[in-house]
């Protein structure tokens, strides 16, 4: 199931998108600023619980989706833990390499852990938005906070057509594969090149067709649409404010070192 389908099925789908952003975005800033592993874990846990318990996403699905950024995180932060120095005694584990030593220091590991958990907390916040809010709703809430209409139109058009482009690309690739287009390196390069150029032609033609179709419905340069009537639930603002305030207090405590 794609993130898109999760968002469409979410139990929190009908909550006004502004509230969801208000709930999930400030903790990102707090986690980045507090730079504390327990606080990051707290945010991570809170968002995970919200997605699973409130949003109705199966825990297994959520964990599977977490694997994707987790893979990047592990590879990315591993590089931070590794250091190079002339003095082997600073390392926990090290190996000589030429005149210097390469290894892992205690501070490096601590830094990597901090980085990893901060990133994980931020990802979980963004996942909360992604798992509960369809892109169309998100676009509308962007308009509410004053993002230029052109930018939103572009975003939503890209969102719509990325799926078409992806579908076409995979159809072409399947057709190429069925004629041994990817058997061998040279053939692979050739196939990939023609795939890319065909996609370009396809996009140009598709945009022309779309333009004609839109003209037929009276398009005059501005995309105007009407959103489905807002049956959006409005949760209590006080409740969200309370959660945010509590998080902020913990973040300050964590940052000033009173807590961990």
């Amino acid at each position: 199931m794609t993130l898109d389908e999760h968002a469409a099925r979410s139990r929190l789908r009908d909550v006004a998108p502004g509230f969801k952003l208000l709930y999930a975005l400030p903790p990102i800033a707090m986690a980045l600023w507090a730079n504390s592993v327990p606080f990051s874990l707290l945010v991570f846990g809170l968002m995970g619980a919200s997605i699973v318990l409130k949003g109705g996403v199966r825990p297994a699905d959520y964990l599977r989706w977490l694997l994707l950024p987790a893979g990047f995180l592990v590879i990315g932060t591993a590089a931070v833990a590794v250091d190079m120095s002339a003095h082997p005694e600073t390392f926990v584990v090290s190996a000589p390499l030429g005149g210097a030593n390469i290894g892992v220091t205690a501070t490096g590991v601590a830094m990597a852990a901090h980085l990893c958990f901060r990133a994980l907390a931020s990802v979980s916040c963004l996942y909360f938005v992604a798992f509960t809010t369809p892109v169309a709703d998100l676009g509308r809430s962007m308009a509410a906070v004053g993002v230029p209409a052109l930018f939103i139109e572009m975003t939503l058009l890209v969102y719509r057509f990325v799926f078409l482009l992806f579908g076409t690309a995979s159809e072409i690739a399947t057709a190429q594969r069925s004629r041994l287009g990817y058997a061998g390196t040279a053939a692979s390069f050739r196939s990939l090149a023609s795939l890319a150029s065909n996609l370009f032609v396809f996009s140009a033609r598709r945009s022309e067709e779309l333009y004609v179709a839109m003209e037929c419905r009276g398009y005059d340069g501005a995309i105007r649409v009407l959103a489905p009537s807002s049956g959006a639930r409005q949760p209590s603002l006080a409740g969200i404010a309370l959660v945010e305030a509590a998080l902020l207090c913990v973040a300050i405590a964590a940052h000033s070192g009173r807590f961990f």
Partner: protein
Amino acid sequence: MASPDILRTEALRCVWPDGTVALDGVDLSIRAGEVTALLGGNGAGKSSLLLSFNGILKPRSGRVLFGEEPLDYSAKGLKALRQKVGIVFQNPDAQLFASSVYEDISFGLCNLGLPEPETRRRIDAAMELVGVAELARKPVHPLSFGQKKRVALAGVLAMEPSVLLLDEPTAGLDPQGADGIMRFIRELQRSSGMTVVVATHDIEMVPLFCDRACVMDRGQVLFEGEVTSMFEHRDLLRQAGLRLPRIAHLLEILSTKDGFDLPGTAMTISGARKILKLMKEEQEINGK
């Protein structure tokens, strides 16, 4: 019943930017309140004719008339025309662009500048009509081809046009889906008196759902008239890369090759049954 012509072309000649002659001297009248089928093989000029009815394709020479007035190709004139003449394209993916079904259907209405309550009423009515009401808040891309086609239709019907142009409405649908959409269009034409022009090479559905037929080949009109008279012009159909409906073909072969003495011709199952029953009755009378 002679209805007044709602759309008419006079010596219409259209040329694509690459020099291909799309329409080559087309004189054609579309009658108000009827379903007209535009028949022809691939590249016969059916889609080009639809586009010129909608003011998208401009004539090199000749003209298109809506009612009694020649088309006005100014921005204002086209806007007024497209409100009354709606077109549904063959590929719904080329027509649907918004991020949800509801928003896509609202697009044409928003361009008309209608007040919001009226817009919402029309969107709901159109979704109800084509049976996509439960998809309203879904994004467009995961819908099935048939659903997308219905949503595209709703987006045009919501604008409440008096003429509906359909480019290959049954292409890519399963037999039941194709029948369903044609029955729906027939019903719509009967209940609201809408004029419908269907470009198709699905010859089987023409006698079932259309009043008139126009056969095109290489940008020219070969034949135009009642669907029932199509049978007499079967040579023209074949010249255009088409054929008779299977039932008509069968009856033709039975009478020309197998020596059956059929009391008439038919193109549909119900028509053929009448003829065969008639034949049976005649035999019974002769037998006694």
